[in-house]
């Protein structure tokens, strides 16, 4: 398969050869920041070498790559995706392919308008838009310089928290990483997970030691590093016994990104009495009003509640991407373990989202809650797809699922696909679902009180999504509220 692809793509072959020549020179100084276009074992080796990875890591990647070659793209989701040419993409350092801009004047005015609506400070706008020389200033302006970041790091280290890029962690804490990497989401789990295992570019590793409550939300820090979010992110968070951490991923501001294909993997491990709260705001480029362009977002997120009384809570606000394929899941192995999934997914214009969760109840008395709010507008389609599974020996399991869909206009679609597999008669499973439209009565009522149409839509939609939004950390909840309104602009009237 590789050979066929290579001969098809002479450019890729030539580039791959060039890399092979280059390979031994890696450890010294390399200006080359790109892996050549296309995907082959050489690409995988390039990435691994670029990151100074140990042999075991490279072997692991290659194994995943070879497995990926035997797999097929999943087709079961309600998504209409044109075939993806995996040889026509860059697999390393592509985020840095962002063109440096001289000033904000060169930024798409549409994006600037959104920044303004979100109330993002000017300097931070520059950073997000990739304006030359903006980064340091932005960090200074927003977070009082790099020293703050260092302070954070010091405070975390004093608490014993390990918070590193995954590349650093692989080098500095190989045993910790080795112990859990690929244990929650095995490399053969699915097509996109296998792809991620082979070519993941970077990501985050967090370890919270026994009994430690992480002294800060790991969000502020992340925000400084937001520009490092890559195409193939890999995140691994381990919460040891009795620990707690709240992690926030993403950014409400639309990110300029040239990459079309995103395939991230997030693995969470939660031991006895520990808790992880994981919040996501995803606002990648959704494509234009005609459905051209936009990110394909194929994400595998899973939490392993291994310990007794362990708890995980996923909260996501998904407004971006042309295609979203994402099911943050909970494997509830521990007795009395708890899984929660709170989701708002907005689709507008030609966006497509197929998202939901899996609650796998293996532990006795494990409990789960699913609250999904789908909002569809324009010509978009949103699907909730969720599995609740109860193993034969898991007594006393409870699940509550609520799926609400809100439609704006008459050309969009909302779909709910719940799968329930129960093998234990003591389980209590509840599923509630509603579908409604924003009514003309509601809109006119709000407008008669003084709100313009966009504000009225935003208000009603935020009310609809409230149960989920209130799960977000405070400062993000406010931004997420604005974001919902912005995502639905022009969808009514």
């Amino acid at each position, binding site marked *: 398969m590789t050979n066929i692809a290579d001969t098809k793509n002479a450019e890729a072959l030539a580039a791959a050869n060039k890399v092979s020549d280059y390979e031994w020179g890696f450890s010294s100084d390399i200006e080359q920041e790109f892996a050549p276009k296309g995907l082959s074992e050489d690409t995988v080796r390039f990435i691994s070498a670029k990151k100074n990875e140990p042999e075991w890591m490279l072997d692991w990647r290659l194994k995943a790559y070879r497995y990926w070659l035997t797999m097929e793209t999943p087709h079961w989701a309600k998504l209409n995706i044109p075939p993806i040419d995996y040889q026509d993409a860059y697999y390393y350092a592509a985020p840095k392919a962002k063109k440096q801009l001289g000033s904000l004047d060169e930024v798409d005015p549409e994006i600037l308008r959104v920044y303004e609506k979100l109330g993002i400070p000017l300097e931070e706008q520059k950073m997000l838009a990739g304006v030359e020389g903006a980064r340091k200033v932005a960090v200074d302006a927003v977070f009082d310089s790099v020293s703050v970041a260092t302070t954070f790091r010091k405070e975390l280290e004093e608490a014993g928290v390990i918070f590193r890029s995954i590349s650093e962690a692989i080098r500095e804490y190989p045993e910790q990483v080795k112990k859990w990497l690929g244990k929650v989401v095995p490399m053969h789990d699915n097509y996109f997970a296998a792809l991620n295992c082979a070519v993941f570019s970077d990501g985050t590793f967090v370890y919270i030691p026994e009994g430690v409550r992480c002294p800060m939300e790991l969000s502020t820090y992340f925000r400084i590093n937001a520009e490092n979010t890559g195409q193939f992110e890999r995140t691994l968070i381990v919460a040891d016994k009795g620990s707690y951490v709240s992690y926030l991923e993403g950014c409400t501001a639309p990110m300029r990104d040239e990459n079309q294909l995103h395939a991230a993997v997030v693995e969470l491990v939660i031991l006895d009495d520990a808790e992880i709260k994981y919040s996501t705001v995803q606002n990648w480029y959704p494509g234009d009003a005609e459905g051209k362009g936009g990110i394909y977002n194929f994400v595998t997120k899973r939490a392993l509640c291994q310990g007794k009384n362990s708890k995980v809570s996923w909260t996501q606000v998904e407004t971006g991407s042309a295609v979203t394929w994402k099911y943050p899941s909970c494997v509830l192995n521990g007795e009395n373990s708890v899984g929660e999934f709170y989701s708002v997914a907005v689709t507008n214009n030609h966006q497509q989202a197929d998202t939901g969760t899996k609650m796998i109840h293996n532990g006795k008395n494990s409990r789960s809650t699913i609250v999904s709010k789908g909002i569809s507008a324009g010509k978009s389609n949103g699907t909730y797809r969720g599995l609740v599974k109860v193993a034969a020996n898991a007594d006393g399991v409870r699940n509550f699922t609520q799926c609400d869909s809100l439609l704006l206009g008459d050309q969009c679609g909302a779909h709910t696909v719940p799968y329930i597999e129960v093998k234990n008669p003591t389980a209590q499973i509840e599923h509630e679902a509603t579908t409604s439209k924003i009514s003309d009565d509601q809109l006119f*009522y709000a407008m008669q009180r003084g709100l313009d149409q966009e504000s009225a839509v935003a208000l009603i939609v935020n009310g609809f999504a409230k149960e989920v939004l209130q799960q977000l950390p405070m400062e993000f909840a406010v931004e997420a509220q604005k974001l919902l309104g912005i995502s639905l602009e022009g969808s009514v009237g």
Partner: protein
Amino acid sequence: MEFLSKDQLVKMLNINNLHTAIGDKEILKGLSLKINAGEIHAIMGPNGAGKSTLTYTLGGRPGYEVTSGAVEFDGQDLLTLAPHERAAAGLFLGFQYPVEIPGVSNVQFLREALNAQRKLRGEAPLSGGEFLKVARAQADAMGMNMDMLKRPVNVGFSGGEKKRNEMVQMGILDPKLAILDETDSGLDIDALRVVGEGINRVMRKPDKAVLLITHYQRLLDYVQPDFVHVLAAGRIVKSGGPELALELEREGYAEIAA
């Protein structure tokens, strides 16, 4: 109340030969009405006369198409304004069926609405604290519990509570002209009195005006109108003083409108 002499009258609303259609169907067929500041007018009429259409047309509801005629409100051409601009200009509609907005508290709703109006008028927004002070005063005056103001807009409210909530909203937004569409429907006698008192307290002022739209005389026992009009088949067919309402009550619309 004291009346201004004729040359002191301040025009509030001037509806001139208004025609409104919903789709192909003409509902208002040349309606004219003048309301001055300080006045309370009542429009009565049988079902299907066009009472709600008049309310929605003045509010600017999409789907209610003005095919001819003019409406001047407080010196502005009302018909060129969007619904929220009409609100900011000082127009308030009391809805016959107040709408539920799940997940949005009354407090949040009204604060956003009031500040949006203030912004359009070039006034500074009220802070959370300032707003709560105003809201609490109005809720107290209407005998409404603050807890109800924190609940989602009209969700789970009884018919009477919804109408009372409309009056609290009117008090908070403090409009120049309130058009109250069957605000009395679904109210028991106690609630009717409270709502009536609310209208008097907020709106019976020399610089404000009210247009009451109602089927029945009973609200007019509490809110004494200066003028009563009979609306039938899309037009005002008769106007008079408060005694006209009593006459209607006695003799029915058919007799008067004929």
